[in-house]
């Protein structure tokens, strides 16, 4: 059943993504051409235009990831909390399957967006320049291994992966909790997000403080206590994992116990 739900979730959302990807790739081609103006022209106005365009291009790259989250959140809101929810929640599918499909859908689009970002950079920088940068990566990995930093790399990789999953999941949970209120559901969702963010910030700061005990400063740990930094990163990984589980079950339980369409 998850496969079926995921198929329709992917289908429902692909249009805005395709338009965004198309725009970014066209902008990349345009930026590549405009970049040449800087090289070959001395006209101030033309250079100003070229620079402004390049700034706009950088913003478009940021917009890709921002758009990605917006599309995912809007799709979740429409599917569950508008009139379309009358269809979603009357399908003979478990609530957990519906939510899990949205999470997988979100992560897939985040990865595709990253891939499109990489392709856009290949177009913008040119393949030779891009692959010159890419060639540095194996050397970096060797250096990481040489200096015994592989553990850090794995920990940071794990944290990044969980952050990718958590980014939409926290918003799903806030919307699901917000809909439990009889009035001002969107306001309640925003309030839930603010409270959650405050708690997460508080716990993160407390963790830094705890892991810094016995050290004169946070930098001290980073520079001198490898074990302390490992412990801190593992804590962050486990904390992110715990948040993932909390957000997921908060979303499911809010819909199961307090659905209010």
């Amino acid at each position, binding site marked *: 059943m998850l496969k079926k739900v995921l198929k*329709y979730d992917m289908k429902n959302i692909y*249009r805005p993504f395709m338009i965004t990807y198309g725009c970014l790739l066209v902008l990349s081609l345009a930026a590549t051409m405009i970049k040449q103006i800087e090289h070959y022209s001395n006209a101030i106005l033309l250079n100003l235009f070229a620079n402004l365009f390049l700034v706009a291009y950088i913003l478009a790259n940021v917009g890709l990831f921002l758009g990605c989250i917006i599309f995912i959140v809007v799709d979740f809101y429409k599917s569950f909390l508008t009139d*379309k*929810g*009358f269809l979603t929640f*009357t399908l*003979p*599918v478990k609530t957990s399957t519906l939510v899990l499909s949205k999470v997988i859908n979100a992560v897939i689009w985040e990865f595709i967006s990253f891939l499109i970002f990489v392709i856009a950079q290949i177009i913008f920088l040119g393949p030779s320049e891009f692959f010159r940068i890419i060639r540095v990566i194996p050397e970096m990995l060797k250096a990481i291994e040489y200096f015994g930093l592989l553990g850090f790399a794995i920990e940071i990789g794990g944290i990044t992966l969980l952050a990718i999953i958590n980014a939409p999941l926290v918003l799903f949970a806030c919307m699901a909790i917000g809909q439990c209120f009889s009035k001002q559901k969107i306001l309640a969702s925003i309030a839930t997000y603010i409270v959650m963010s405050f708690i997460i910030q508080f716990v993160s700061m407390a963790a830094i403080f705890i892991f810094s005990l016995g050290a004169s400063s946070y930098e001290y740990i980073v520079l001198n206590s490898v074990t302390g930094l490992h412990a801190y990163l593992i804590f962050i990984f486990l904390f992110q994992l715990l948040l993932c589980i909390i957000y997921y079950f908060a979303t499911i339980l809010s819909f199961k116990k307090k659905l*209010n*369409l």
Partner: protein
Amino acid sequence: MNKTNATSLTPLLVCQNLSKQYGSFTALFPMNLIIPKGRIVGLLGPNGSGKTTFIKLLNGLITKSSGDIQVDGNPIGVESKKVISYLPDRTYLNMSNTVNEILDLFEDFYEDFDRSRALSMLESLQIDPKSRLKTMSKGTKEKVQLILVMSRNAKLYILDEPIAGVDPAARDYILRTIIQNYNPNATVIIATHLISDIEQILDDVIFLQNGQVTLYTSVEEIRATHGKSVDEYFREVFRC
């Protein structure tokens, strides 16, 4: 309607002390109700009487405050949703989809969906399955939704205002569609204000007022006891 007594006596929907509260407001007072298989039931009441709340509870769109609901022996959940075919009082489909895409969705999720029946009904209403919902009029969208709902071989059909948004000619077609396409062992619950239009197909009626069931009887009983049509009796009971 011709039904066997055995079918009519088998309960399909059982509500025990079912209630719904929104904060301090009681939308539905504790309700006990048994609706058997093979009946067409009119769920009637003035605005704010609790019809939509009751229907939403049956479909799991809101959660109950207390009590119990069983549909074909199952609580509200995946199993009950397999046997309930629900037509809400609003458009719940993706407007950018074509009718064919929506048929695919229903076919994928509902084992009891009969695509050929849906296509035949679309053809008789001259609705092109390749057209997108956003290009259709409000009435046509409602017809598409009704076709989807009535193309399932469900055990319980719940129709919330099925004829409210369509012209009188289409109303006749819709009522014929309901009668011709529902499984005689199934039950149909129709919530509507247009009583005179539907009363010829009803077996039973439920009157709801201020979140309470004030009457649950057969149409024949109303006619025999009060010498009035359901519409006339409704107007008398709920006179403002």
